């Protein structure tokens, strides 16, 4: 698609949407959101970019093959269950660390977040693999 308006706005929207997708992923532990929905948002942003410019640009931007991103996410999600086993608990038992910020705020970082991030990457990888392949076939 060759539209100046779409191209210009997509440049802004991409960064906003990606930021929003990370926000969705992070708040997912106790509120609506999570890795899956965040990953879908990111995929949607990337697809918009592919519409505005072209598929090759998006592929170059991703650097890795989409399926490799999914593989990375799968491996991360898998590893997120392992720290729980140190100390004899079962697989996927959650482990938490508290990060104290200078202004006194606390950030709870835990293995479920790593799991969510893995899911986030799997969704982006698989979503992009499917959508980009289909977009390429239509373009041919």
């Amino acid at each position, binding site marked *: 698609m060759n539209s100046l308006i779409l191209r210009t706005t997509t440049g802004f929207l991409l960064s906003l949407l990606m930021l929003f997708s990370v926000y969705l992923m992070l708040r997912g532990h106790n509120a609506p959101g999570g890795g899956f929905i965040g990953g879908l948002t990111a995929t949607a942003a990337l697809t918009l970019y592919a519409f505005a410019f072209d598929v090759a640009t998006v592929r170059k931007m991703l650097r890795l093959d989409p399926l*490799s991103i999914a593989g990375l996410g799968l491996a991360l999600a898998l590893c997120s269950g392992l720290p729980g086993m140190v100390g004899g608990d079962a697989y996927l038992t959650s482990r938490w660390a508290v990060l104290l910020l200078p202004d006194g705020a606390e950030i709870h970082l835990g293995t479920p977040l790593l799991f969510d991030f893995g899911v986030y990457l799997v969704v982006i990888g698989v979503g992009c693999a499917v959508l980009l392949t289909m977009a390429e076939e239509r373009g041919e």
Partner: protein
Amino acid sequence: MNLLLVAPILLPLLTAALCLLAWKSVRVQRWLGVAGSAALLASALALFAEVHVRGIAVSHAGEWAAPFGITLAADLLGALMVVLGGIVGLMVSVYSLGSIDEGRERFGFHPLVQILLMGVCGAFLTGDLFNLYVWFEVLLMASFVLTALGGERAQMEGAIKYVTLNLVSSAIFLAALGLLYGLTHSLNMADVSLRLARLNYPALENLLAVLFFIAFGIKAAVFPLFFWLPASYHTMPVSVSALFAGLLTKVGVYALIRVFTLVFRDDVEFVKELMLVVACLTMAVGVLGAVAQMEMRRILSFHIVSQIGYMIIGLALMTPLALAGTVFYLAHHIIVKTNLFLVSGAVARATGSFELKKSGGLYAAQPGLALLFLVPALSLAGIPPLSGFWGKYILVKAGLESGQVVLVVVALAVSVFTMISMMKIWSEAFWKPHPLGLTPAPVGLLNGPIAAMAAMTLLIGFGVEPVMQLAERSAQQLLDPQSYITAVLEARR
């Protein structure tokens, strides 16, 4: 113990993830596949050793206790099945190095095999009925893609039948789960077992039992729900059909054993009767179907069906000896059947065709391969002292002890017909000269896994005593569900 239980599930998943990371390099994926399968087998053996020494192993993911959490439990049968899954996985991975085409490899053959193995191991290790459903779906998803991968015309036809029938089975399974949950408010197998025993609704229990029998029966390919199997197995690449032939129907049989020893224990006499009839018909119809075929893998596919009948016998009789026979038969059958499919691939490679009419001359050109075919073939037919003889002997003995004469007669007659089929393959593909006068080509690497599995068949045949003791011990465990229930519900940490 926690690590041992999750390793057979995590290792294939990790291998698949690594294969995805190495998506561009088929060579790396190949070796990852072999290494992953070898690691799976090693972890399965470690789990088996643990269960053998210390009894039932239980782990609750995330420390959420049963019946609410995700329970993984391995008794002897479960651990044995995981070991067999590892063996088949490793053999098929090695075999596929020399047989699968690069097109399929580039579209994810290796990660899919690993995902399939993960689903199979998950199904063997789960202690929760809904998770069993999920693992079934995992392995079915992988198997759907493996069936259709390559997109040849015949393959698509087979894939459509395969996918449709398996989706029907999943739908029935899911409906049965819903009803069971409505009745007992639980899906943890141990918990359901206790709750069902306290309820007194024989009619509903029988209905549920029949639904489960149909759902797993489709997957195990029993009469009259088997027709998807011979319609699809001969259309896939050899590595895939060997993997399916070895493991997939047996997951169905395993699920039947688990459900009918643990969950539905009493009040299901109707289903037991049904099973006996179905076992007889499955054996007979399967073997008669094979007689009419002249394509090697179609013959073998029909024989899977007929062999499933033998395994159902033991479950239907439910005596300690009969159940031990079923466990023994499972172990013997998985190895022999996988091997026969691997041989069929070697035959097709050497002579150029799976069609018996178009092949021949293998005995003169490759007596070694001919010998390697004879071991699993004669074992399947039940010739002493090979493994199949002992399996049939135990089941026939158990049948006679229970006074099921008709069953025994059918089982013995089916053996004879199995022998006829195997001799048909022998005389057509190996004995007669090649119809076009060609000299069969060497098959190289393919001989390796075939020889290894033939050696295992011999090992089971000659070392029958320890294997039988193992089968008896696992049958005792199955017949004493209380120990499983206690292990799952009272596992601390």
